[in-house]
Each structure stands twice: as C-alpha cells, then as structure tokens.
C-alpha cells in the first residue's frame, strides 16, 4: 500500500483559551489511504467536526502527529445555501478557485469550468445564475465542483447530504462515488447518519467524547459492533428505519 494521504497519530486538540480551554480531541489516531473513503461517525459534540478542521489546517491548538499529503484539501459543507456566495454567479464561483490557483487567462479558466460541468451534472446555462436561482441539489453540485476544480485529491465531506431530501441524497452520493473513481479522490466523510455512511464509506471510525472508540471496515462495524456506543448508534439508526 502506498503512503497514506492522511496520517494522524495521538492527536489532541483544544478549543478556547485560558480557563475556558477545553479539550475536544483525545489521542485520536487514524489513517486514510489514497482512494479510500473513511467515515467519521458521532453525535454533535463528539469532536468529529474538529477532526475535520484539523485535517483542513483550520485548528492550530494541537499536539501530536498530523500529516496531510495533499495540496489544499477542500471541504464540501452541509448547507449548500450557505457555502456559495449569494452575490456571485455560478460561473464566478467556479472560476474563483482557478483564479486563486494562478490561472490568469480568462479564456482558459472559462474553458476549464465548462469542461468540468458534465462531471458534476451541471449545464452551461447554470453558469449565469446565482445560487438563489438553483435547487438544493444543484447548489450542492456547484459546491462539489468548486471544491474539486483546483485539483485537490483529498476532500472533507461534512454531512454533504444531510440538508437534502432522500432522493437527492442518493443522487449526490452516487455522484460522489463516481467522482472518486474518475478523479482518484480520497474522502473524509463526517456524518451522524449511519445509513448514509454505509452507502459510501470503506471504513468507519466511531467517535464520542473526542475519542475514537471503534474503527474498522464498514461491514464489520455494522455486523459486529464491539463498543457499547456503536451499538447504541446502530440501534438508534435502525429504530428510525
């Protein structure tokens, strides 16, 4: 196996300063191989979002090992209504990552954006629209395209389908799976929804109280959960179905 794209060992992280400083990650260790999808599951406050922020380099108060072997890992946010600039057109939003990456020629940027559209299932007519003129599913497609167009190989997906209805969820998950194959991506998939994680992920890490309590292949965790917390999560998810 080649070098892992994310390597975390005994990572600790804190939030706040002085007396209010609170530990949110405790001795977290995990690896993400190229082309792999790792689900991080836990309830809110479990530290899974902090873990994602650490991988993205947004948290500085950390100790331990944190290696990310991908230029500029990107994130797809939960709420596609908030993650796209309401004042800009889709064309501008998709060109901006290229502009930032130093593609100076306008024609080249436009061409690369146009070439990228079919990959995420968007049409050229969408380019002139603003986010408010798109449906939730279309917005999430734009957000995914914006995250990928710079050529990042590592994408953090923060509950990317939780804000969408069930049929759209399936479409976007399908799209993410296809993109992973076509572009050779690795995903760190943050979610509280075990059913969604089961569809997309190769491995799962279960987090609670800032610690990873159980980690393994998706099937194994689902069929033979060992930790009490994992069992509780599974039972809760099954009860909903």
């Amino acid at each position, binding site marked *: 196996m080649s070098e892992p794209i994310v390597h975390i060992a005994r990572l600790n992280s804190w939030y706040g300063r002085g007396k209010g400083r609170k530990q949110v990650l405790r001795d977290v260790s995990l690896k993400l191989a190229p082309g792999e999808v790792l689900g991080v599951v836990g309830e809110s406050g479990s530290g899974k979002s902090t873990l994602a922020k650490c991988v*993205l380099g*947004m948290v500085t108060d950390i100790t331990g090992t944190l290696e990310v072997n991908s230029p500029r890992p990107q*994130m797809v946010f939960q709420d596609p209504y908030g993650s796209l600039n*309401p*004042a*800009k057109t889709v064309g501008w939003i998709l060109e901006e990552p290229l502009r*930032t*990456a130093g593609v100076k020629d306008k024609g080249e940027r436009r061409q690369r954006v146009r070439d990228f559209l079919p990959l995420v299932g968007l049409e050229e007519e969408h380019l002139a629209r603003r986010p408010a003129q798109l449906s939730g599913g279309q917005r999430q497609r734009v*957000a995914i395209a914006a995250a990928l167009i710079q050529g990042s190989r590592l994408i953090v997906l923060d509950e990317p389908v939780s804000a969408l209805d069930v049929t759209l969820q399936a479409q976007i998950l399908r799209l993410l799976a296809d993109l992973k194959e076509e572009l050779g991506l690795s995903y760190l998939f943050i979610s509280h929804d075990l059913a969604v994680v089961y569809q997309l992920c190769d491995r799962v890490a279960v987090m609670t109280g800032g610690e990873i309590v159980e980690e393994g292949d998706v099937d194994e965790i689902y069929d033979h959960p060992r930790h009490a917390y994992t069992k509780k999560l599974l039972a809760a998810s099954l009860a909903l179905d």
Partner: protein
Amino acid sequence: MKVKKKSWYLTIGGILTACMLAFTATGLFWTPYSPTAMSAPDRNAPPSAAHPFGCDQLGRDVLSRTLEGAGSTLTIALAVLVVGAVCGLVIGALCGYYGGVADALIMRLCDAVAAFPSVLLALVVLALTGPGKYNVIGALGVLFIPSFARLVRGEFLKYRDRDFVQSARLMGVSQLRIIFIHILPNIWPVLLSGLTIGFNNAVLAEASMSYLGIGVNATEPSLGYMLKDAQGVLFTLPWCTIFPALAAILLILGVGLLGEGIRERMGGTAA
C-alpha cells in the same frame, strides 16, 4: 413570506432626485444672471417673468443664487459622503473581519466621536481651521466616518464566519480579496441605503453650518448661507427664503425616498 406591496418610493424618489440633479447641474454651467451681480433697480423685486424667483435686497437674482447654492451644497454633501463612506467602509470592513483588540479600540473611538452632535464638533474644528469649502468637507467627512464604519462592521461580523468565506479561505484566497471581493458585494444594499441617509445628513449639516455662519465663504453661496442671508427679510421678501429652502427640501426628500425605495426593492435589513 411577506406580501410585496407595489411601492412608489423608488419611482417618485428617482424622478425627484433626477429633477434636482438636473437643476443643480444646470447651475454649475449656466445661471440666468451672475449670482453675485447687484442691480439697483431690481432691489426687493418680487417674482416676475424676468426674475422667476424674485430678487433680494441687493437686487441679486434669487434663481441664479439658488442654482449656484444648490450646486455648492450638493458638491459639498457628495464630497463629505465620499470621505465618510470610503474611510468608514475600509475601517468597518477591517474591524469587522479581523476583530480583536484593534477593533475594540477603534470602535470605542468611533463611539466617542459619535457621542457628540456632529455639527457641534464640526463647528469646533472650523473655529480652529477657519471657514471655507475644503475645511467644511474635511471636518464633516471625518465626523461621518463612525456611522459608516459601524454599519459596515456589523455586516462583516455577520458574514465573516459564513461557509462561503471559510471555503474561500480553504482555497487560498487572500484575506483582502475575501474582504473586498467576496464579502463586500453582499452588503451593497445595506450600504446603499446608508449612503442615502448619509447624503441627507450631509446636506442638512452643511446647511446648518452655513446658516450659523461658519460654513462656506460668502463668495460661494450655499443654500444654508442663502437662508442665513434671508432671515432678516423673511416677512418682507419671503421669496428669498422660500426658494432656497424648497430646493433643499426637495433634494433631501428625493434622495430619502430613493433610499427607502432601494431598501424595499432589495429586501434590505438596514434600520
């Protein structure tokens, strides 16, 4: 969802503002008589075909003086607005986006400045620097900064942690580009309605200061200066007061309605 009522603010405000701007622009290039030329036979003349707005006690044509006065009031108000809005925008944007100690200090300073009535403070400044167009612009402009800074800062506080801003940071967009290219376009509606309110305040402030005799020089009359000049003859030569006052009122009313209309149209949140 609120039912949108058809509103005439934008239309009426737009027409009124356009008329007043045309009136003022005319005054910059052409006046029927010289605004300062005195003519003995026309002293105290009421409005007539030759002098539609009448003449004052020195025989000067009130229409010509109103045209020139509106021009000078408008240019001063716009210059004040540019100074206040540009500085306020930059300060508010940086404070709101970065926060921290510098933000707290600058905002307390703004509170301190805003705690005094701006005309009073400007009078103090002008008492030190002497009257004149550029001194008025400088003094009022600086005093207009806090209100814009606070308005812009509030908006930036609202936007700085939005997902689209985080996403831009992850892509490696520079901080200044995030502030002025990513966030700023989102606050235009609020800023625009703030600008219209600021414009009206600037017109009023300039007029008040000239009325108190500490604004522009006598050689370049503004509307406020004309009103001050005319107060002694308010009842004998009412046209000397009515026409300049009317010009100021219509200008303020037009821009005020326009701002209200813009705010409504854009579904703005400004108070």
